[in-house]
């Protein structure tokens, strides 16, 4: 990191970069959320199931995010852990209309939290209770109860309901993550 980079950041010309990992069950809307967060001209029109992962970039007011958008399909979930190490924040997407698989999501979350690379770190976790527009969808509170989020004591976490297709609720989450990371730096 050269002197000019530091200077540029100090002057607010260049934003600080953060690595974020985005996980969740398959068909929960991870890629759609990330796609929505990207600038208008970089968005894709059709979203297909991710195989493996993709790297995406977007920016908030003060930070530049590099997101590892992981595949949620069962056979690839064990590959998430390869990317925990250098993540500075985790976005966990939950399909709030899928009550049946909520337990599976809970199970995956527990595994994530017990991972060596996560366990020791005070890393902010943002939950999106996605698909809030669906008729049978649960509220954010209900989801946090079912996921047992209140048991997470050693890490800051936040849950917000979202609709990835319209983008509703997304900025709120990003703002929270930005605040958390900035406060952590201080």
């Amino acid at each position: 990191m050269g002197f000019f980079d530091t200077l540029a950041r100090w002057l607010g010309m260049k934003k600080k970069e953060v690595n974020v990992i985005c996980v969740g069950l398959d068909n929960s809307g991870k890629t759609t959320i990330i796609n929505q967060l990207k600038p208008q001209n970089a968005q894709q029109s059709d979203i297909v199931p991710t195989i493996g992962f993709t790297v995406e970039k977007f920016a908030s007011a003060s930070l530049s995010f590099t997101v590892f958008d992981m595949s949620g399909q069962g056979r690839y979930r064990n590959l998430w852990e390869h990317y925990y190490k250098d993540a500075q924040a985790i976005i966990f997407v939950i399909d709030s209309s899928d009550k049946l698989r909520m337990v599976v999501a809970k199970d995956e979350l527990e595994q994530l939290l017990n991972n060596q690379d996560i366990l020791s770190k005070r890393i902010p976790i943002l939950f999106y209770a996605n698909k809030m527009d669906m008729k049978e969808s649960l509220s954010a509170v209900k989801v946090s109860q079912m996921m047992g989020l209140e048991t997470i004591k050693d890490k800051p976490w936040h849950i917000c309901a979202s609709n990835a297709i319209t983008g509703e609720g997304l900025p709120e989450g990003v703002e929270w993550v930005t605040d958390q990371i900035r406060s952590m730096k201080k």
Partner: protein
Amino acid sequence: MLGLRRDKKDEEDGFSLNPFNNLEKTSVLQEARTFNETPINPRKCCHILTKVLYLINQGEHIATTEATETFFAMTKLFQSQDVTLRRMVYLTIKEMADIAEDVIIVTSSLTKDMTGKEDMYRAAAIRALCRITDSTMLQSIERYMKQAIVDRNPSVSSAALTSSLHLMRSSGDVVKRWVNEATEAASSDNIMVQYHAVGVLYHIKKTDRLGVSKLVSKFTKQSLRSPYAYCLLIRIATKLLEEESEGRDSPLFDFIETCLRHKSELVIYEAAHAIVNMPNTSARELAPAISVLQLFCSSPKPTLRFAAVRTLNKVAMKHPAAVAACNLDLENLITDVNRSIATLAITTLLKTGSESSVDRLMKQISTFMSEISDEFKIVVVQAIRSLCLKFPRKHGVLMSFLASMLRDENSSNSSQGGFDYKRAIVDSLIGIIEENPEAKEAGLAHLCEFIEDCEHTVLATRILHLLGREGPRTPSPSKYIRFIYNRVILENAAVRAAAVSALAKFGAHCEELMPSVVVLLSRSLLDTDDEVRDRATFYLNVLKQSNKALNSAYILNGLNVSVVGLERALHSYTQEPSETQFDMKSVPLATQPLAEQKAGARIFGAEGLHGAEVTPAAKAPDKVAATRQDIYAEQLAAIPEFQGLGPLFKSSAAVQLTESETEYVVRCIKHTFTNHIVFQFDCTNTLNDQILENVTVQMEPTEGFEVLSYVPAASLPYGQPGITYTCVTLPEDDPTSVIGTFSNTLKFLVKDCDPNTGEPDEEGYEDEYVLEDVEVTIADHIQKVLKPNFAASWDEVGEDYQMEDTYALSTVKTLEDAVKNIVDHMGMQPCERSDKVPADKSAHTLFLAGVYRGGHDVLVRARLAVDDGVTMQITVRSTDETAAEVISASVG
């Protein structure tokens, strides 16, 4: 200063030349953890990836866990937008695709790159993606592949097409669905895309012959832009022509011919090459192709000249007349600055040229002989040899050229190198001597000169053996004695032994030289080497008997048994000593004639007693031939029914008793013993829903023969060959009736079975299958034996049992045919190269030698004269009356 000096030293040792020398695998993999750092340093990461690639390509083994760890670390480099780094990542993905696990993790990242806006990424991403994709994953990227194939960017389209070709191997079914996209790509404007598309289309339809021919006819009509695609089409068309064996009027051939007028040289050459290499082309079809190649010969581009002259050189073997038209252009190429072109041009000319141009060409070659490599020199030598066979009258010039080549080589280069080259020359000289009696004396003189200064023992012994065989029969044999005796004084033991043998042959053959040879041989009695001393003593004692029969049997003609067989027989004799004497006749005979066909000129020297003179080249085929019969002998000896039959005398070649596509395929091998014949039937069951059991071949013999026993094959499952034997006694009361026809029936018990599991039913039923007849001919009773000195053997056998008769062979018209028929019928070995009939002669004498069943020598002399039909006077001599009778009776 110190540092500087060390650097310099390193440089001299060549250490610092390669920065990647002495890379440690563990330290490189350790460095690879840098990939996990943020932000990414592209320059550094590129360097590390290069190291990883270097290690993999050096064959360093990287364990799966290590590789996977490195691979996942590398996947984080997808964050970086650095173009160079990304392309290095693609390369590494391809290299690690097989050694790391879960490589499909990068699938989406690569899919994103291949559909993205950055053209630099797209083609490379496709290649990497197809490398990591297996058939199950292919479904998910199929849509992108289809799009990429028809992409407007040629590099993307080409990458997708070539990757499809690779995918074809693992998941052909999926790729087959891309036929529409490939067809669209085939009409692309880009020459490479078109070429690759045609390739993919061909591979999709490869198994469907109709599809391929439709494809070809479609593209031959619409004209392609790409010369590469044209070349590919020409190859496909050639293959189709070959498979269909269609006539030359087929549209495919017309297409290839029109390609001769294409504007691209590439296509023209490909078409000419295809036409020239087709089997059975007529001169008229060849002419346009040859004339194109002729044009290329005067092209300013060396590659074209080389391609043309190389192709012409090959064609010259098959169609010398057609190539002769290019002689003028080829002559210009003799002086080409490129030596490879010049050499090929000259050797082509030698094959096609006329007799009158030989002298000039030889002079031309000698000017640059010293400048070309040994490999090309051998090409020249071989060309000279074939030339000698073509123009026997030119042997003087050619042989003196070969001799001077030998001499130059000797004087300029005395090191070990050049052995192959010298051997090629010596082979050629010997070949010429064998083929052309007129060249014999000059050739022997050249060889004599060569062995005066020859450091290769193998060559010297071969030449000495040749001298011993051919020398005594020349008009003045005495002049060779000096050369041979020089070897006894000067050379190593192996050469001395060979020289002693050669001397003895002179003594045995030429009576006037006998006293001198005896004197010379007696000098070797005190040689330091055992072998030389033994040979000298042996020959000396035989010569002193002055007995023609002895001379012939022990000096001139040697033993005819197989060396392997003799060794085995002697070994078993010493293991179980008995009162009876060792019987030479129990040893199987050497089956030389098999080797002779292949090794032609090398056959001499393969006789048993002179084993020391056998060249490695001659020994190899001889051994193989000997072991074929040995294998049969061993197999038969293991069967209790055949214990009492005595030694195996001869095994015939296999005869097919069925068509090759029938339900059961049977072939028969006849094994002749002293008083029996064992028929070996190799049966194969080609029905996968049947198992045959208790398989025998029922034989209905001609009168006099008696079936002694059957050895059934217990079970014959699908596709596994089984063997059944039938043993027949030869007629005892009439020893002269040895020929007969046997009608055969295959008898067996059929059990139906499940084709998949091979489980047979409990119940079976008897069935039979009629086979073709087997004939026992006179050839089955005679083993071929080569008598190097036929006249001596003729005298040795004597007139005691001589039969003489005259026949008119009305069916054959020429001497060649007559000789061939007689040799085939008798199954005996032609001696003194009497099977080659000199051209334009009206009379010929054929000498045949063999051993009749039971170990009796048989010699046949057939005098043939041609007038209207062929008249034959045949004289049979044998050491056994029956044998003589049988053979002379068989002729009628």
